[in-house]
């Protein structure tokens, strides 16, 4: 079976400064890969390069088995990879929620009624059907994130790439987000500092450090720890 993403020997630089060098990565269907690493290590740059938003300085990018070099090649495959931006306001540009979620399906060539139905279905699946008529910039951080995700799911992508999805999301909407991602059948690349979130969702992890992409391990083990705490009431 062809890999969804295959990178080899990939390097990216900006203004003469290398950001990533000699990156190799393979992502198979159903895999949920977590990318971890310190701030500024190049995790977002890697995601943007995979989509052709950032020019690579060398190496090869294959998406769904096809070698991608030109904007035209990337543009054709981009809708199959749902990319959740770090800042929801970058993604939500339509005045109302339903218009924003229908934007993708309309670009895919669906007619207005079909696009609306797909948007409503995506909103319903995330349990936020009631947000449809709301003004997008007046939503809370968590609601914005869920609407962005609905905008991606409405396009029925084969995989998702999520850049810090839990940032600025309240606990209730965070649980909805997690539930939705858990039930997403496709593959996923997940960039997050939220260790618990990553451990819950990811099947595999890699670390970006000093411009390199290295394999990492997810393991679980029992914790034993000591701490001081306060007991209320009479001593016993």
């Amino acid at each position: 079976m062809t890999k969804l993403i295959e990178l080899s020997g990939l390097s990216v630089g900006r203004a003469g400064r290398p950001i990533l060098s000699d990156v190799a990565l393979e992502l198979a269907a159903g895999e949920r890969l977590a990318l971890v690493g310190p701030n500024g290590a190049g995790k977002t740059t890697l995601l943007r390069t995979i989509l052709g938003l950032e020019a690579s300085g060398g190496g090869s990018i294959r998406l769904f088995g096809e070698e991608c070099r030109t904007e035209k090649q990337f543009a054709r495959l981009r809708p199959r990879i749902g990319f959740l931006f770090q800042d929801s306001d970058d993604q939500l540009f339509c005045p109302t929620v339903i218009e924003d979620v229908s934007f993708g399906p309309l670009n895919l060539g669906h007619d207005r009624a079909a696009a609306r139905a797909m948007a409503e279905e995506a909103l319903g699946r995330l349990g936020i059907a009631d947000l449809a008529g709301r003004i997008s910039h007046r939503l809370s951080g968590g609601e914005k994130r869920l609407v962005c995700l609905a905008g991606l799911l409405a396009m029925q992508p084969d995989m998702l790439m999520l850049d810090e999805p839990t940032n600025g999301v309240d606990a209730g909407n965070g649980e909805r987000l997690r539930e939705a991602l858990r039930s997403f059948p496709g593959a996923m690349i997940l960039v997050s500092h939220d260790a618990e979130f990553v451990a819950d969702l990811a099947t595999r992890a890699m670390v970006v450090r000093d411009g390199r992409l290295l394999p990492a391990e997810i393991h679980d083990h029992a914790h034993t720890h000591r701490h001081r705490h306060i007991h209320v009431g009479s001593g016993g």
Partner: protein
Amino acid sequence: MTVIADPRLGLVTALIAIVAVAQLHGLPAATAAFILAAMLGGVTRAGWPLARRLVHVEGFMLLLFVMLPLTMPGEPLARIGPLSVSAEGIALAALVALKVSASVLLLAVLVGSMEPARLGATLHALHVPERFNRLLVMTARYVDLIRAEAQRLRESMRARGFRPRSNRHTWRSYGHLAGMVLIRALDRAERVTEAMRCRGFSGRYPHAAFAPPALRDWTASIAVAVTGLILLAADRL
């Protein structure tokens, strides 16, 4: 209740009527225009919100009534120290105030508070170039965000002890602030475009098509436009 339900006709009618009002030279015609526009406003039963919108404008008009009589040369009506109040100035201020008020009323009644999305679709249907259209709609969407960004920058300046004064440091700091807001807006625009491309955008926004306007809309539109043109003709003859 709206006078013209179809947004395309509403926009075009408002444009014709306002252009006609803007060309008026005489006080009687301008007064008639204002009264007619107010009557049109009465038909919509918009009432208080409409009046409030007008009050916003009248603040600026008040400024005209202060400035123009003192600065227009002409027959002096009264003297305040070295300054003289001219009749021509008062007449001109009244003319401008009547025309502006009539135009604001027309715009509020005929175009109303059209949402940006609907405005985009309307301009598209009127064959306004897509680039110009998108500029307008995107500005409406992001102006709040950019304002909030500027506000945060200003607060952080204040938090570090900045107090605006009339000196070089203040001007330079405001220059930096304006520059930074522009740069951030540019970055934001870059990212919004990328997010749109990621969702398959290729340059044309898929707008909804409009149904043809109702007969009632045509009638109202023609009535308003013709009234405007008759006023203009009466003013000139």
